[in-house]
């Protein structure tokens, strides 16, 4: 019996676990779908949206997060060529861009507060901007965690298949939250 127990150590199969990340992406999409449909129904029933000119910081943060996706793609390519040091450097750049993104978001909230459009108030549409961008920022935190996980895998020189797997799940998730932010930003622009 003991010897046969080892048979289950089937070769490392990343597929089911990558699928888990995809399913998480689906459920997260649904959650933001829930938020934005709240907003649509709310705005339709009141005949008004948030009515704000969105802070410029959101434009910069959008550019930063697009840039971070690009650096992440480059990191994946570096890994494919087994250029680990380039991969690590590019991952660090991505992390730094993520931090800049976070700072930009706080910046945007700050400038909204200065114009009087605060989280707490009687316009739920304005509060909504804080809530969705905040929830998105939580996702960014998770994404940074995954990128650091990939970095750690690279530094620990795990087997290439595992480094690749960590890289892939980080990429799936990071590109998702990139697209998610663009969606949210465009949504807020279009539904003033």
């Amino acid at each position: 019996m003991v010897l046969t127990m080892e048979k289950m150590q089937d070769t490392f199969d990343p597929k089911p676990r990558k699928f888990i990340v995809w399913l998480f992406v689906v459920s997260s999409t649904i959650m933001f779908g829930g938020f934005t449909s709240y907003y649509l129904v709310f705005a339709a029933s009141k005949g008004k949206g948030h009515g704000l000119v969105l802070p410029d910081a959101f434009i910069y943060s959008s550019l930063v997060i697009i840039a971070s996706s690009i650096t992440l793609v480059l990191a994946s390519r570096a890994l494919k060529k087994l250029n680990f040091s380039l991969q690590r450097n590019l991952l660090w750049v991505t992390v730094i861009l993520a931090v800049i993104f976070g700072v930009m978001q706080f910046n945007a909230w700050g400038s909204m507060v200065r114009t009087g459009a605060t989280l707490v108030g009687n316009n739920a549409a304005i509060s909504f901007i804080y809530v969705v961008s905040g929830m998105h920022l939580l996702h960014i935190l998770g994404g940074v965690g995954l990128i650091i996980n990939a970095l750690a895998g690279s530094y620990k020189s795990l087997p290439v298949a595992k480094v690749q797997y960590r890289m892939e799940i980080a990429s799936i998730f990071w590109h998702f939250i990139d697209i998610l932010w663009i969606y949210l930003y465009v949504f807020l622009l279009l539904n003033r």
Partner: protein
Amino acid sequence: MSTIALHDEHNHDHADHGHHKETLISKYIFSMDHKMIAKQFLITGIIMAVIAMGLSILFRIQLAWPDKNFPFLETFLGKWAEGGRIKPDFYLALVTIHGTIMVFFVLTAGLSGTFSNLLIPLQIGARDMASPFLNMLSYWFFFMACVIMMSSFFIQTGPASGGWTVYPPLSVVAKAMPGSGMGMTLWLVSMVLFVASSLMGGINYVSTILNMRTKGMDLWKMPLTIWAFFLTAILGILSFPVLVAGVVLMVFDRSFGTSFYLSDIVMGTDILPNEGGSPILWQHLFWFLGHPEVYIVIMPALGISSEVISVNSRKPIFGYHAMVYSLIGITVLSFIVWGHHMFVTGMNPLLGGVFMITTLIIAVPSAVKTFNYLATLWRGNIRFTPAMLFAIGLVSFFISGGLTGIFLGNASLDINLHDTYFVVAHFHLVMGSAAIFGMLAGVYHWFPKMFGRMMNAKLGYLHFWLTFIAAYLVFFPLHFLGLDGVPRRYYAFTEFEFMKKWLTVNVFVTWAAIMAALAQVAFLFNFFYSIFKGKVAPQNPWESNTLEWTAPVEHLHGNWPGEIPTVYRWPYDYSKPGHDADFIPQTVPFSQTMSSNLPHDFEGNAEAEKIQQDWELANPVEENKG
């Protein structure tokens, strides 16, 4: 032999399959083995069910004897039952927490958590879940959610009491009533953990089913249990996140003073500052989860009873494909019917009409399933095991509760019936009792797989008949209260002239509920006694075809020693004409059952058909041999 060589290649980095050295903690507490996690879910679910049942007996006592004092209540409940009489606030807390526990903790986590975990890897032929670690996390989030929910009984203001649907403003304005304060906060925290647990579980189930089936196990060879768990998990993944969205907005309203759900509220002489929000929007977000949720509750039970009924009728399930398509139909339709909970919110009648039509269409797949159960039973060689009785009980409740759904789904009738005891009677039969019976059927049927021992059948029969009769005695009379317009959740029937005549019925219902509760003692004793002292189970006690019964009785991490078995046929080859035994496990290839193979078994494989034809020519059937 080759397995010996593999021993040294043991990959220690691969922590998810960790069976390095089993300690008490890694085996029984932070276990990553799906079978142990299933047991953890089951036992936690049973404990929560007993608690929720106890709560229901408490409020039934209040409903039956609103003017009597029961000093023992004060002993247990202290200030919540001063003078031996339950206070109105606490009464509301009781119905709220009873509903919350039953719907989420027992019939979602207790049911899906137990049987998805136990059966998915075992029935599809996998070593474990896609991510055993997430699976473990899923249980511990659930456990924390239970603890936090129960902790609200130990704070002065008591648990949440605005109903399990936690409609604003009661759930948002902390000063609205005692239960809206700390109790409601704990409810929200608990539910956030619960949803996280459900999502981790559901995502794992779907990924496991789609990626980790053994050789030969294509989707159309999966048992109906797996189909049901699969579609249930998909429902959870697609609907729970919407509840999260709603809950996040609610937390902001409660704790930060936003106005997502609040507008124009006056409390006494205070005018609250909130403006512009809409409590109806919470209802939309809640019921977009809430309606799929009732199918999350019932579909695993339907899957379990499909399997149990087929095994114990010794017949193939009638209409396997129709069963799957009706589950898919229910899954899809469940997302476009939530408005039927909101017919009386001032909804546009045209929209109400749309929701009514989609709702009534659900009767079609539901009826397909019901008729298929009956057709499976028809002229079967029935074995009335306790599990079988509970599965038949499910069919009974599903029919009698489903019929009243047709009344309630009708927008114009619902204006009268909304929020009355008719609704209470309806859902307690169709999803409450039916799902509980499905769960119990599963417990009796798979107990030998879980614990390696058999439950006592005689106690099982006693448990079944008492519970079955008592459940009808409790819920059937409630329909008539509802038709008379008696609203649910009211504290004292003595306070309203038109409700007084129903007091005697309430007394009757309460006695029936007490009988149902006592019947569970037979189950609890049987369950816990049999874990340690039950008769040792044979490998395949029910002579069943599915893969889990090919795994050894003693549990091992990885389920099968050596190779995972290969699957050759669907799981419902019972009483196949021409075969000597009345069941053919999925692992038996067609080459071993030449006398019973049918042309469609080969799925158009010309070579196999040719071999079969040659064999039949060489071995002509001797007729009238007696």
